[in-house]
């Protein structure tokens, strides 16, 4: 029986063999996959041996590499990498003039553990470096630290003298010292770097935030020549004259502070920016005093009548008003609950839009703003970037002070520039958008082309509205409060702004904050000028007036007079044939 059964089994197997062979091969493979094959362990230990050999050879190779590396300088540099001044790129103006650069100096350090006679070392060092505090130095040398600074950034002569002392454990490290050849000229733009050459304010800080410190950490960039200079939008000549005129103005008008800026409205580039009082970045001991802030970007102010330009542009752009709309100012005052708003230069008659601007009519502005409505007003100012913090490359910035509850009364006051405090640079950007055809771009301190500027620009108003704004600003320059700045040949347009300062929560009658914004040339604006005075006083020629035209306006006129030729603005003594075609067509007031 068993025999036959075996036979059968064999037969079956033989029959199935042909088709089962591949499957069995697969099965065997599968079984193999799940089986531990102990017989493989001998060659596999061989593989482990190979792996370890490679590992140990790699470690040895790395050791040899480290040993053959030139170590002395690398070592010193690494040991002091966190302590010494790293290199910074030069900062140059738009024409390549150096604004900030590094020079090589030497610092003295000591290794207290290597100094044998600490008293003698203290005595000798203080004899050569008289600025040192002997007590402090003795304490430093008494510690068990491996490295202490004796004095940073000494002169070559001092270095030679210290060297001649021959104290063991005292050495020198080359360092970079930041210098600003133009001193105070562009202080608030450049900011400054501390003794370790780390930028801590202004563009210097901005440069660091762009990854310079990482570069240093990686051991690159040990000399400033290794780095590409940073090209600013600033024109050093313009910057100088801006600061100069503001200095003169501050003295003449006895203001407590002054600020100014010149901007290219087609690119948003800031050509010059000054805020007085300022500081010397070479020795910024007083930079942190309270009155040294950058008033253009850190101070927030109620911009006064300058804001009327925004109100009018909003009304015109919304279609709620056109250039020929008119507004009654009869009565010379408006009531909002218990609040009364008066006209400053009351005329008492009905004014067209250009006249509202010319006479700086509060009532006209209020009526235009109310026509748009509270929500529309808010939305427009938001669009014009007046309600949020404006960030430029400068790390110092301030958020505007916006009313927490914004009712009709707020819209009414903000319409003529009270009740909303913004940074002047913010207002500058908005005015630039009003006159450049309607493109809002963030001001920049880095040089950029018009194409690049256009890429980030946002259209905020229609080109027609922009033309109307240019038109009324020019009218104001010709006939209105901006006459002081109407430098012949440059077709200047402008707007004054005088706000009463808020002292202890009340508007102080005799303390003004004055601004003057001017554009040139009005038919196709290229440059925007802004001057600001804080608490200017009246003077003999002004008949005691301290309103914007008599100080900020005068200064702006001087600025245009001096800056325009430098900036290559050609004077035209015949007025352009048809500067505002649309306004002429509409027969706007003053266009004939």
């Amino acid at each position, binding site marked *: 029986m068993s025999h036959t059964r075996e036979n059968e089994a064999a037969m079956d197997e033989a029959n199935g063999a042909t088709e089962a062979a591949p499957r069995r091969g697969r099965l065997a493979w599968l079984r*193999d*996959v*799940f*089986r*531990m*094959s*102990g*017989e*493989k*362990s*001998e060659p*596999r*230990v*061989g*593989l*482990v*041996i190979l792996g*370890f*050999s490679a*590992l*140990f050879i*790699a*470690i*040895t190779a*790395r*050791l*040899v590499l*480290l*040993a053959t*590396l030139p*170590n002395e300088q*690398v*070592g010193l540099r*690494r*040991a002091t*990498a966190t302590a010494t001044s790293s290199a910074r790129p030069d900062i140059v103006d738009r024409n390549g003039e150096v604004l900030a650069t590094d020079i090589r100096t030497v610092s003295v350090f000591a*290794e207290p*553990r290597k100094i044998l006679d600490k008293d003698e070392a203290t005595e000798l060092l203080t004899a050569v470096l008289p600025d040192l505090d002997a007590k402090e130095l003795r304490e430093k040398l008494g510690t*068990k630290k*491996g490295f202490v600074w004796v004095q940073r950034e000494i002169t070559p002569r001092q270095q030679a003298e210290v060297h001649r002392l021959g104290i063991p454990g005292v050495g020198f490290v080359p360092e970079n010292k930041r210098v600003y050849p133009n001193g105070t000229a562009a202080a608030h733009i450049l900011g400054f770097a501390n003794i370790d050459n780390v930028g801590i304010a202004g563009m210097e800080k901005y440069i660091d935030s762009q990854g310079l410190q*990482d*570069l*240093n*950490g*990686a*051991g690159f960039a040990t000399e400033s020549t290794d780095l590409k200079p940073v090209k600013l939008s600033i024109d050093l000549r313009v910057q100088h004259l801006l600061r100069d005129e503001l200095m003169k103005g501050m003295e003449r008008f006895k203001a407590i502070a002054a600020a100014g800026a010149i901007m290219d409205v087609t690119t948003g580039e800031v050509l010059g920016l000054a805020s007085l009082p300022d500081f010397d970045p070479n020795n910024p001991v007083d930079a942190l005093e309270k009155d040294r802030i950058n008033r253009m970007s850190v101070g927030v102010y109620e911009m006064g009548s300058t804001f009327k330009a925004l109100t009018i542009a909003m009304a015109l752009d919304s279609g709620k008003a056109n250039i020929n709309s008119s507004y009654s100012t009869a009565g010379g005052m408006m009531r909002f609950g218990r609040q009364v708003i008066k006209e400053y230069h009351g005329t008492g008659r009905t004014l067209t839009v250009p006249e509202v601007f010319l006479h700086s009519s509060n009532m006209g502005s209020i009526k235009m703003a109310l026509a748009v409505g509270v929500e529309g007003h808010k939305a427009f100012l938001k669009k014009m970037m007046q309600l949020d913090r404006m960030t430029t490359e400068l790390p110092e910035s301030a958020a505007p002070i916006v009313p927490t509850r914004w009712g009709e009364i707020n819209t009414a006051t903000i319409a003529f520039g009270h009740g909303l405090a913004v940074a002047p640079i913010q207002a500058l950007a908005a005015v630039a958008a009003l006159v450049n055809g309607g493109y809002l771009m963030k001001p920049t301190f880095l040089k950029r082309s018009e194409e690049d500027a256009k890429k980030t620009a946002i259209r905020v108003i229609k080109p027609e509205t922009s033309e109307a704004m240019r038109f009324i600003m020019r009218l104001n320059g010709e006939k209105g409060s901006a006459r002081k700045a109407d430098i012949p040949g440059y077709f200047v347009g402008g707007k004054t702004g005088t706000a009463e300062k808020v002292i202890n929560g009340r508007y102080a009658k005799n303390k003004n904050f004055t601004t003057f914004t001017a554009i040139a040339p009005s038919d196709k604006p290229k440059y925007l000028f802004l001057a600001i005075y804080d608490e200017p006083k009246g003077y003999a020629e002004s008949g005691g007036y301290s309103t914007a035209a008599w100080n900020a306006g005068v200064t702006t006129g001087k600025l245009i007079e001096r800056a325009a030729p430098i900036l290559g603005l050609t004077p035209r003594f015949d007025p352009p044939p048809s500067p505002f075609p649309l306004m002429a067509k509409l027969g706007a007031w003053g266009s004939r």
Partner: protein
Amino acid sequence: MVSRAEPSLSGRWWWSIDRLILTALVALMVSGVVLLMAGGPPVAERLGLSTFHFVNRQAAYLAAALVIFLGVSLMSPRHVRRVALFIYVVSLAMVVATLYFGVEVKGAKRWLTMGPLGSVQPSEFLKPAFVVLAAWAFAEGTRRPDLPGTLFAMLLLPVTIVPLVMQPDFGQTMLVSLVWCGLFFVAGLHWFWVIGLGGIGAVGILVAYELVPHVRARIERFMDKGSGDTFQVDTALESFAQGGWLGKGPGEGTVKRILPDAHTDFIFAVTAEEFGIVVCILLVVLFAIIVLRSLFVAQKAEDPFIRLAVTGLALLFGIQAAINMMVNLHMMPAKGMTLPFISYGGSSLLSLAIGTGFLLALTRRRPRAVDFGSYRR
């Protein structure tokens, strides 16, 4: 002195022991104390202890370690397995105990206070015992497929590393897992799994890099020196640069004063600074001798248990040394791992004595009994 003629205990030991490994180990132990004289004092001073605090303690531990080391090396493979099982159970219990009674140091509970004996780090003792047990299980798995040896070995890993992860101690976890993987590989894992699991591991690292910010930061910090805090590694590299070929001379080191963990994780760098890179290379050679010699012995061994256990112990020893040296040399991201026999640490030293004792015991030449180590192909 030790004659082959009279089969005394010491005589048998001396003639059967692998004297190359023994010499290298003893050389390492001695140099450990010498090198700690460089790395220990600055840390001791910083902590306000007496200058030679660490050196003295290490020397005392070394005396105890030598006794354990010699004692363990006398054992037979059977004893080794039993002792390993005992140590494993006890130390695993202690590791679990750390989770409840441990002293928290730098955010991890790894230490148990043992009254007057000071504190111990039980995970150190777990390592050699784990390796021996895993090797035993794998060996049984291949030798007797009817027993679930491989399954047991596979269970051994989670049982061991889960408490380690909870401590948390990722360095030890990584080490234990790597050795276990090595053992599995040597035990005859099919290439299908080796490549497959390797691939999964690589994908896992990639996923961790993409998703876990901590891992990403660690790796990026390693790849790019500019980003983040690289103080330790920079200072370590500085030690090598300052030391040069021949070093500054004993006691002359300066970088070691600012180097954190100069007596433990970064003692290799301190060695370079004071004794020179030549001495570092000699240390590498000593480690290489121990590891490679053990592996060659393992390759020739006929008993699968011996082969796997020796391979595992050599892996444990070699990987730990290699990781420490590579971290010092900035060849891999920072990972807290001590250099065997050189770094300061009582628990570590005693555990190493047990581990290398096992290694010596298992690499002894022994008469090939016909039944013992019979190998069915």
